[in-house]
């Protein structure tokens, strides 16, 4: 007699586990590091196209309402913001470290913390002294910024953000500069000159973290892909 289906499925799990191939974990890790290296090469290759996209994007920025919150456009509830045609830059400098989430390595930075209540980003030096405090703006109550500790997944000097509205409403695309894209569902951190009245004052974005162009450029230069940023 056959066992019941439940029992047969349970036995199937065990039997397939016994047959499963196990490789050396170090081999798997080295494959993961190869993916990173390949990604980095792709980013370099795309730099040239990036400049052209950025020019188009600047035109769009002027055409839309630069004083509105968040992504600086007519974004409504339920809209989605998707970065398209990313125009990544070459990562600055050689790939000095391949580990993800390692502590920041340049300029003696140890920690970067965004405080959404005070609307500030505090950058700590190696000696735990405050190196720089940057006024920022984060997501509104209805579009809160994700909190947690995130990793800089990629850096892009210019990129184009485009938004499509449900029900075929307005859509727009804007160019943004000095973009740090965070891993694990974290927000993007970039220059939002159109939100200058909000930095250090109130949260007025649709979830991303904005700051002045000068501060965003400084931060971009300090952090490498793989560095961590804590948002709370």
């Amino acid at each position, binding site marked *: 007699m056959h066992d019941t289906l*439940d029992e047969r499925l349970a036995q199937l799990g065990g*039997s397939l586990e016994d047959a499963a*191939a*196990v490789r050396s974990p170090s081999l798997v890790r080295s494959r*993961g590091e190869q*993916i990173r290296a390949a990604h980095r090469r792709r980013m370099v290759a795309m730099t040239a196209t990036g400049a052209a996209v950025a020019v188009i994007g600047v035109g769009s920025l002027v055409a839309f309402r630069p004083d509105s919150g968040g992504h600086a456009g007519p974004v409504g509830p339920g809209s989605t913001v998707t970065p398209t045609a990313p125009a990544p830059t070459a990562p600055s400098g050689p790939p000095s470290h391949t580990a*993800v989430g390692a502590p920041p390595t340049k300029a003696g930075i140890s920690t970067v913390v965004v405080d959404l209540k005070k609307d500030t980003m505090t950058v700590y030096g190696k000696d735990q002294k405050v190196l720089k405090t940057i006024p920022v703006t984060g997501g509104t109550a209805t579009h809160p910024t994700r909190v947690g500790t995130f990793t800089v997944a990629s850096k892009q000097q210019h990129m184009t953000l485009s938004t499509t509205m449900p029900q075929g409403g307005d859509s727009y695309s804007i160019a943004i500069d000095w973009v740090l894209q965070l*891993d694990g569902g974290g927000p993007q951190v970039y220059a939002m000159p159109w939100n200058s009245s909000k930095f250090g004052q109130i949260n007025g974005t649709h979830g991303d973290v904005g700051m002045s162009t000068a501060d965003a450029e400084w931060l971009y230069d300090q952090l490498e892909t793989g560095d961590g940023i804590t948002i709370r």
Partner: protein
Amino acid sequence: MSREQDFDEFYLGSVRKVTAQLVALLGDAGEADDAVQEAYARAWQRWDSVSRMDDPVGWVRVVAYRIKVSSWRSAMRRTVAHRRHGPPADVPDMSPDSVALVAALRQIPEAQRRAIVLFHLAGLTVEQVAAEVGSPVGTVKARLSRGRAALAQVLGEPADEDVKGNHSYA
């Protein structure tokens, strides 16, 4: 513990289970193996994020499954994986009943198969299955029930419900 040790422990502790689940989901041991190794490589690539997740094993399983769902990508990646690793590691033969069950699972609709594998092989609750596949709990229950009936039919035996009374997925 170093990050490497941490990852290695995670890999060695979970790779057999995840591979078994992917074999049942995909119906092909070689493809499942490739997808799983690739998913673990990606987990290491972003280990600081993945290791802090509530369910890193679930992350690897979902990533492996998505890798395979897109077939042109899988074909490319398989070529790369073979070049890199050589032929797949020596795989012991599956038992005749396993072969029959995996073949039967391939014949039922994909959504039902996924629900059955996650519930019966991965040991998730109905709620966890619903969260992983992104469907309502009621839908998952229906897929489980229909999937079991379809599976029983393919295997040429009466559905369990007739033998054991109504199966509850509560």
